[in-house]
């Protein structure tokens, strides 16, 4: 019979990972990929590891432990910087999914439609990787492709770090789906905007489900610098979408996605202005 480890410490987990294991966190991606068949992989359940749990804060920013669930995030006392991520959390699946699904699982599963990725890109987050040698990667380098991450054998994602922005920041998230609940995004957009005397001093904007991995939009970010609150939405231009490469699929056409993203971005930025 296949092995099942549920270690109490990170050390034990890493020892177990010397041999190949599938990591199990909230199981909301793990089990749906295994319908109607016996599960015979060796499994490492990381739910019992205290060091991977909880949200902590220090001068540099916040650390979201890998097994932080969407619900824990929604309920956590966090500044407006996290509003976008919280909005995304409220729209991941239904309550059942939010109660057990983890943010790190969302990143490691690396679906092009993962709602957490654009938010965390906009938050300029970094991945804390535990393994034979601990390392940290900017999120953009951690998720490397559709269903691909930079994790090497023997490694796991220990936490996500969100740096404290230099100025007061606001953030938001907009998701487009074909029904109200339990829906995979056709496209989604996330933004963090830092203001100084009512002018944009820094902006980070990312779009998901329109490329193998969610992408930041540097041209739009640059265009937003210096903008007053009222003009944010007007600075969105289709030409800024160059990093995206949307495809036709059952949820929508490529052309539609391009068109819809402009609308989402305008509305998102409009929302941040008010």
């Amino acid at each position, binding site marked *: 019979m296949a092995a099942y480890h549920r270690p109490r410490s990170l050390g034990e987990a890493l020892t177990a990972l010397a041999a190949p294991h599938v990591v199990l966190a909230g199981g909301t991606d793990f089990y749906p990929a295994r319908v*109607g068949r016996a599960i*015979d992989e060796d499994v490492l359940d990381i739910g019992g590891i205290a060091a991977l749990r909880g949200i902590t804060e220090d001068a540099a920013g916040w650390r979201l432990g890998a097994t932080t669930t969407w619900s824990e995030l929604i309920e956590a006392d966090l500044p407006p910087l996290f509003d976008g991520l919280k909005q995304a959390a409220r729209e991941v699946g239904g309550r059942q999914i939010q109660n057990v699904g983890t943010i790190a699982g969302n990143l490691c599963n690396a679906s092009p439609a993962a709602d957490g990725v654009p938010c965390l890109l906009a938050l300029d987050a970094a991945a804390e990787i535990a393994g034979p040698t601990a390392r940290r990667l900017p999120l953009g380098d951690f998720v490397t492709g559709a269903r691909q991450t930079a994790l090497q054998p023997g490694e796991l994602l220990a936490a996500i770090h969100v740096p404290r922005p230099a100025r007061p920041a606001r953030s938001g998230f907009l998701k*487009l789906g*074909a029904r109200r*609940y*339990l829906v995979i995004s056709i496209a989604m957009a996330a933004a963090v905007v830092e203001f100084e005397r009512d002018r944009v001093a820094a902006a980070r904007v990312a779009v998901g489900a329109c490329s193998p991995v969610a992408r930041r939009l540097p041209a739009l970010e640059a265009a937003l610098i210096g903008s007053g609150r009222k003009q944010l939405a007007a600075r969105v231009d289709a030409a800024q979408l160059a990093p995206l490469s949307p495809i036709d699929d059952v949820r929508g056409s490529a052309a*539609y996605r391009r068109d819809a993203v402009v609308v989402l971005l305008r509305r998102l930025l409009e929302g941040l202005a008010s």
Partner: protein
Amino acid sequence: MKVGFTLNGKAVAWQGAPITRLAAALRDDLGSTGTKIGCDAGDCGACTVLLDGRQTCACLVAMGQIEGRTIETVEGLANGAAALQASFLAHGAAQCGICTPGMLMAAAELLRRNSKPCRGEVEEALGGVLCRCTGYAKIVDAVMNVAAAPPRAPTTGAAVGARLVRVDGLPKVTGREAFGADAVPADALWIRVVRSPHARARFALGDLAPLRQRLAAVLTAADVPFNGYGIYPDIKDQPVLADGVVRYRGEAVVALVGDRRAVLSIRDEDVPIAWLPETPVMGIAAATADGALLVQADKPGNLLLEGGVRRGKVAEAFAAAAAVTEGVFETAFVEHAYIEPEAGWAVRVGDRLEIHASTQTPYMDRDEVASIMRLRPEAVRIVPTACGGGFGGKLDLSVQPLLALAAWALGRPVAFVYTRPESMAASTKRHPSRIAAKFGCDAAGKLLACEVTASFDTGAYASWGPTVANRVPVHAMGPYHVPNVATWGEAFFTNGPPAGAFRGFGVPQAAIAHEAMMDALADKLGIDRLEFRHLNALRAGDSTATGQTLAHSAGLAQCLDALRPHWRKAHQEVAAFNRSGGAKRRGVGIGCMWYGIGNTSMSNPSRMRIGLSPAGTLTLYSGAVDIGQGSNTILSQIAADALGLPVGRIALVAGDTDLTLDAGKTSASRQTFVSGKAAERAAADLRRQILRLANAGTDAALSLDGAVLAVRDGGEVRTIDLAQAGPLIGDGSFDPPTTPLDADGQGIPYATYAFAAQIATVEVDLELGTVKVLRVVAAHDVGRAINPALVEGQIEGGIAQGLGLALMEEYLPGRTENLHDYLIPTVGDVPEIECILIEDREPLGPSGAKGVGEPGLVPTAPAILGAVQHATGVRATRLPLLPHRLREAIVAAEITP
């Protein structure tokens, strides 16, 4: 591994593989089958339990994760949430009941935090549990009004018309109801089927001997005594197991039978099958192209069936018309998506087979299984389990033939439960359609002529294709008086999944076309869309396109009258909203329908019995299966009043082919009308016998006290001691009077028709192409509402399915084979619904009742699409109207906010 946890307040020690899903452990090892499995993938929420007080999908939790934690399931609710369960019962929030345990748990979590939630909070809390039956309206009401008093039990003689609580409701809210997968014997062997990954291929089986050594049996086509089945006696075209050729993706090829773990651990790749894929014939255009490959070798042109209705002089009438309009409309494969996948178990008892399975049609199952097994029908007993939703999809065989084969051969109980992807790939679908319609009217708006050609993709096998192709030409002109008619229905084989019966048998697709035509003609003449329909509505005394005179009960005009104030008000509100500009635009639309109750020009009798035992037990023996729509309750209400005893006295024996008589299938909205009439007659027969015994007059009042039946006639009371006089059995049957249709489709296809009209208000996001349905008002002529709460439940559930058909549902083989990618409406998608019941009595029906099972769905999509057009100017011609399709049409039409 040993896992200790608390289950419903009790410490439990469980032993097993820690990766086992909590849902499986609860059901298979801990006897808590109240937790249901609809997908094993987090998509349906049927398995929702509370884990440390929070709602969680038990199918996504590993047993290894719950050491020391607390689990609450529906079985534990009685200790605290009894009021919630009572509220579900009282509000009629459980129809089939398969989603009910999950709904209850999700609601219980909410109510602990917030005893007075608002609608939005309820929707948020229930957003992760899908219900395919109710349209959620009564569920939301039940959660918001837990304290509401239950409806009072009706007095004797007043059961018909009462909002009687469903007679079979209690087990649905306690989790004790046994669905197809719930009462499998512990020693059962299990079946797993290897299905075709190709839509069209030849194949050769390799050496199966090694597999046969590991398993109890490996079944192939060679093991099936008669390897063909199908709905029609003369079309047995679908093999139980494919024989060298597969015609759709998902077709059954090899059945593995053995210990459950053993069959699950064998991967498809481990079964030696050499595939030779061929280019599949997909869609009507491909099937009808010159030189198209044949799907079935003996079906030239891939044609299954064609036929039509002709009346009057169509060409002349069009030439004389003041306004003519045309359009072509296309719909996709639509999946039933009942939350209970096909499931059941079987056992051989001597020289007989006993099959316990989820079904809509026990007698057809019995005869078909007998034919496949080459047994006499009497050698097969079908015991329907509770059915977790059917909608037409459980009229075809699914698990039954392989269960029969394996149980017969192995002499042990055998179980078979489809996985969700298997259910979606293997089962029948709604027929994709291409409907070309042309309608014309005179200058006053009176319809003169219509010409409709409805082409259907019937998939790989006939299934109910002929029923669809026959029914549609009769209905395709809509519920209107049209003097000159040429309608045509045709169905073609393709390498898609078999298209079968799905709520409405093609009529919903046809309604999308004829209602678009009504809107277009009304607009051309500048007549209000509702008034245009009112002007043309079929009324009692009119004759239909098949030459049938509607003597009674044609209540479309009354429906429209009832909707008129709502329609006007909605128009005013929408206009006010749109004046403020912006990217959101609102619109109002209307859809009408008619629907012939029962089979088309075919006998479809029902026979019922009701008995009084010597002990004084009153039992209704009903072969009709209640698949959630409420026939158990309706039939009891009808029988109670016809007999003259309180409905609460009636015990029910339902469905079992050994204990009941053939009531026909639960389809075509026929059980209330046909079986209801049979139940009324059976009860009346029993009453006659009682009155004769008591020598009493027809107005005598009955009462039952133990085994003593008292008959009060005027001032006189006579008693009958049933211990001596019993058993007394009343027998009744009914077969609606119809006649065959001639070559021009002339005749009496149905004994009666339901009529309905619905209006929908929508909000369209012009920039994103998304549509939110805000409100639906539905007026239905049901003849007589035997139980208004159940009627509303059917309408609300139908509207939710109609909304899905219009806006989101599209089954694509290999791409939307799960409830993640195939979207059905959630609680947040279904609008506020107001039902208006019109009761234009049908003299043939029991207490004047007709049927409502399918009609709820038919007008919804047309109303929504009309509303979208009102809002945007865009008329959808291809369904579902996904956001990208609508947005592309808006861009093409250069419509801007």
